């Protein structure tokens, strides 16, 4: 097993309105792997992801990233938002380059980087379109490209495919696996889809709801060197889906 690049130790979160979202969450995320936070809605998985991102404060415990304790956002983490969070008044090129723009990278340089990642996520030719002319799946590709441009080691994805239709989602999942294999990123991925988690993940943390806490960690025994269609018929993949369902059904 590889070393953990992100560690969550005893993290707890109580919202201002008194709702306890998370209690004593302990998790380690191995470097270079894709880990999923999976659970029913209201189990605090997005809250946990945003705490790791440093976007919302936690009340208890510690978050360690690359051997350092963190309390806010940092350049080694990039976030992909559920609602894409694109600037509606900017075109694809500026949106993808926006992370670099905030860091003060000069325009020609950041646009060159952005063009490269726009091509990688399959949006070449759409550089000057505004987001409202793109489909949901294309918008999320913009969100992913933006996260890749800043060259963070860790990509945090908050239900990135939840507002994307099923066909687009499958294609996007396959492309995502390709991209990540190519770039050696560590990914922490939030989803409520068991199939998505089993298909994508090296490690799945199952969260139980109210207050959210880790109920089990599953490591799917899926051979990822095979083709996407073979994986979806793979014994290990199907068993994982079954196992997870048996654990999660008690929460719903």
């Amino acid at each position, binding site marked *: 097993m590889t070393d953990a690049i992100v560690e969550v130790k005893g993290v707890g979160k109580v919202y201002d309105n008194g709702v306890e979202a998370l209690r004593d969450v302990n998790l380690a995320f191995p470097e270079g792997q894709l880990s999923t936070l999976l659970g029913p809605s209201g189990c605090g998985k997005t809250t946990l992801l945003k705490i790791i991102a440093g976007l919302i404060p936690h009340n208890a415990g510690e978050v360690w990233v690359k051997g350092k304790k963190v309390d806010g*956002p*940092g350049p080694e983490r*990039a976030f992909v938002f559920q609602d894409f969070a694109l600037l509606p008044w900017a075109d694809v090129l500026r949106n993808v380059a926006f992370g670099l723009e905030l860091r003060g990278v000069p325009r020609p340089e950041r646009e060159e980087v952005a063009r490269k990642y726009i091509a990688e996520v399959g949006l070449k030719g759409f550089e000057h379109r505004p987001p409202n002319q793109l489909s949901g799946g294309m918008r999320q590709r913009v969100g992913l490209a933006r996260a890749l441009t800043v060259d963070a080691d860790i990509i945090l994805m908050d239900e990135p495919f939840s507002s994307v239709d099923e066909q687009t989602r499958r294609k996007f999942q396959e492309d995502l696996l390709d991209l990540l294999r190519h770039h050696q990123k560590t990914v922490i991925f939030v989803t409520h889809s068991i199939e998505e988690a089993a298909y994508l993940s090296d490690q799945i943390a199952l969260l139980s709801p109210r207050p959210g806490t880790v109920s089990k960690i599953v490591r799917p025994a899926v051979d990822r060197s095979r083709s996407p269609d073979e994986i979806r018929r793979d014994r290990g993949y199907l068993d994982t889906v079954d196992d997870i369902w048996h654990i999660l059904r008690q929460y719903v």
Partner: protein
Amino acid sequence: MTGISGQRAWQLASFVFFFGLWELAGRWPVSAAFPPFSTTFLALVEMLRDGSLGKAYLITAQPLGIGIALCGAAGIGFGIGMGLSRTVEWLSLPIFIILQAAPMAAIIPLLTYMYGIGLTSKVLAVIMLAAPVIVMNSYKGIRNTPPSLLQMCRSFQGTRRQEVVKIVLPHAAALIFTGLRLGLAMGFIGIVIAELLITPTGIGDLITYNSSVADYPKMFAAIASIVAVAAISLHLLERLERRLFPRD
């Protein structure tokens, strides 16, 4: 193309229908003081030719222009300040909520009492009507920034300054512009009330004078002209707004 020209035809038809009804009602007659459309239109042409209408608009435009310009500068500034700072919001939000709800025609005599019957009072009347909507729109534009855009900015370590300049203000621009347009609409109401209630000047003078000498075609022409000027300028601003800030 056929869709647009079809739409134009319908708009034209509705004008013809409306003016036709007006003509009929005037000829019936509904009242001795209600001239038909044709007579009113001729009176309008005459007022245009003898320059009285132009002169009146030059006078009316002054307090309206000054009022809207002041609201535009200070009102937007205030609204942005309220949106960005809780303290400014706490201090000034109640004032604008009260101003928005207050019946203005009742307050205007109070203005005369304090500032006389000159330009100042009329500018203030415009400001009191236009400012609340301009301020509140700017304020809401700032406050309604989608939280995920702000989180996105923070996740890439954007500074507060970058957050305001690159996200909050561009996002609010569309609503601020809408506020200006609605403010101008309120300003038209304000200036006509002021010119009728304080001292008759400009277009208000044309209306009151012609009413007092029972020249009803001219009176109606003056009223119709201010309605038309307001409607056309607001329509043009709305079109500009749609070009500048296309919606999702």
